[in-house]
């Protein structure tokens, strides 16, 4: 194998497309980060939720003729409600228990359930949406790239921005962080811990919905396609720093870049190994993630 330095336009092309692709992991990771950050739960079902949303988008498109990007207006509120319900129905009790394995396993059970229900309802075959803009390209910075991926990037950016603002600036957002740290103390402040956990879950699932729109417009999918998103999102999460919501998006983009460079310079067969290797290295040597500033005194 030879290591020719490619011309700058190819580098730019690689970087741009890698970043756009990585934003997909980013969206998935932000939702995961929120749930993980508040409930310390590795929500392995996030990928399955994304695919569920994708099927839902498809049903809206072919059933009612609603444009996939327009369907965000439906998917997000529905995601919020579903997230709220999932928390209240499945995780409320487990959140109070000390054993974190329980919520992990509920997430696994939920993943099995959703994947296979989707198989029963929609069959196991690959499904896809074809719109007027499917597979159409646009020019950014003189580089040709995908329209739907660019849209996905915007969705990721907007979603993350909103969540970060919510957590940093609003009192409820702070309450979400507080309750995740010490539930008993939070209740003494008048914070209902279950309400804030439910909020975190609702937002997490709504973000899965947004990711579902991005996925449905870009990829064909099947009921089991989500798991890889969960794994990649976890990698993005660690790169960005656990609990660091904005970092999760950045981590996703970085992961996309790594994959693109490895695919181009080494071989596609090694993208996963190298991505996971970077993941381990970051966990070990910079567990707070790559994008968190070291703590400074006021």
């Amino acid at each position, binding site marked *: 194998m030879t290591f020719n330095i490619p011309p700058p336009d190819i580098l730019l092309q690689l970087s741009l497309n890698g970043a756009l692709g990585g934003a997909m992991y980013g969206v998935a990771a932000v939702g995961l980060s929120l749930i993980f950050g508040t409930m310390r739960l590795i929500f392995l079902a996030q990928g399955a939720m994304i695919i569920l949303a994708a099927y839902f988008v498809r049903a809206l498109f072919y059933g009612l003729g609603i444009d996939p990007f327009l369907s965000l207006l439906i998917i997000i509120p529905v995601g919020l409600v579903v997230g709220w319900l999932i928390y209240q129905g*499945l995780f409320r009790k487990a959140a109070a228990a000390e054993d974190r394995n329980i919520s992990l396993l509920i997430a696994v059970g939920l993943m099995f359930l959703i994947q296979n229900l989707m198989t029963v309802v929609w069959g196991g075959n690959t499904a896809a949406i074809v719109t007027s803009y499917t597979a159409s390209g646009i020019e950014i910075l003189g580089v040709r790239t995908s329209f739907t991926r660019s849209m996905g990037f915007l969705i990721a950016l907007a979603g993350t921005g909103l969540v970060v603002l919510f957590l940093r600036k609003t009192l409820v957002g702070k309450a979400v962080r507080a309750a995740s740290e010490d539930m008993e103390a939070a209740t003494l402040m008048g914070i209902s811990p279950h309400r804030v956990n439910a909020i975190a879950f609702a937002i997490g699932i709504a973000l899965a919905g947004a990711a579902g729109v991005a996925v449905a417009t870009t990829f064909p999918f099947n009921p089991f396609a989500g798991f890889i998103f969960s794994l990649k999102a976890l990698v993005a*999460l660690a790169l960005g720093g656990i609990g660091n919501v904005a970092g999760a998006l950045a981590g996703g983009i970085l992961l996309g870049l790594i994959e693109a460079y490895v695919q181009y310079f080494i071989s596609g067969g090694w993208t996963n190994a190298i991505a996971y290797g970077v993941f381990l290295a970051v966990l070990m040597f910079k567990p707070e993630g790559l994008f968190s500033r070291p703590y400074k005194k006021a």
Partner: protein
Amino acid sequence: MLKQAWNKQAKAGIAIAVVLALALVPLLPGAIDSYAFSFLFFVFIYAIMAQGWNLVAGFGGQISLGNHAFFGLGAYTTAILWSGNYLWGSLYDAYPRIYYFDPVTMVLGGLVAAVAAIIIGLPLLSKLRGDYFALGTLGFGEIVKVMFINGGDFTGGAFGVVAPASTFDTLLPHYLVGLGLMVGTALAIRLLMRSRYGLALIAVRDDEMAASANGIDVLRVKVAAFAGSAFIAGIAGSLYTCYIFHVGPDSVFALDWMLLPLMMTVVGGTGTLLGPILGAFVMYAVFDLARIVVPDYHPVISGLTIILAMLFLPKGLMRSFGGKAA
């Protein structure tokens, strides 16, 4: 007090009776050729895996999400030694009968896994705690899998390694070895937990800082538990190879080998000695029954069962019905 003592004795008595009954199963007419026999064999494998996970996570407090990698390492080690052309050529050609459960091969399977656990555990456990360790082990599992896919001829690449199946004639030895390993693992862990090592393990689980301030080498204890868990998983993998004859990255590095034992342990009772075994019996029975009764959508039933078990039996069977755990 008296009640507690009785409880303990009763538990031990029941356990011995069950083991004896299981050992006698092969004597029943037709048992060896029955489906129940292979069902039990699988239960044994899962129980051993669950026991291994329980050692590091239940007793040690370190949630490992990478035990499937150790299972796979044990399975591959056995398959490569037995059928490949490495080291001293094919074991099977050299000793046509002893490849089944050859103790040297099995222990090697466990050792390879344990050494991998030490190599990865030293950096991981000295740097990572709790959830971060869990994530790290998950990443480790994926890396090992990719490495085996890209391992060329040595690992058989994405296809894997096949051992000669033609000499198989009965499941009886598998059953007996599986049963023996399950009982042996449980006994070994029981001994271990009563030794000074068990004391240290629990101390580290309860409070690392206090443990180190009291003279416990925390890293060593944790790495040892991780390696012990990997050893057990490696042996289970070796046992599986003797049954399946074909190991491939998708089959022996499947996440199921980690998730199911984890779930079985939690359902049975984390940090209890008999919980993992009980959990393996109950959950595997539920899954298998669902597969036979409703083949078209049994995973839905399995998913539901997991959720319901966690919602209504969060402390595990041993603690919910067996009184206070040991």
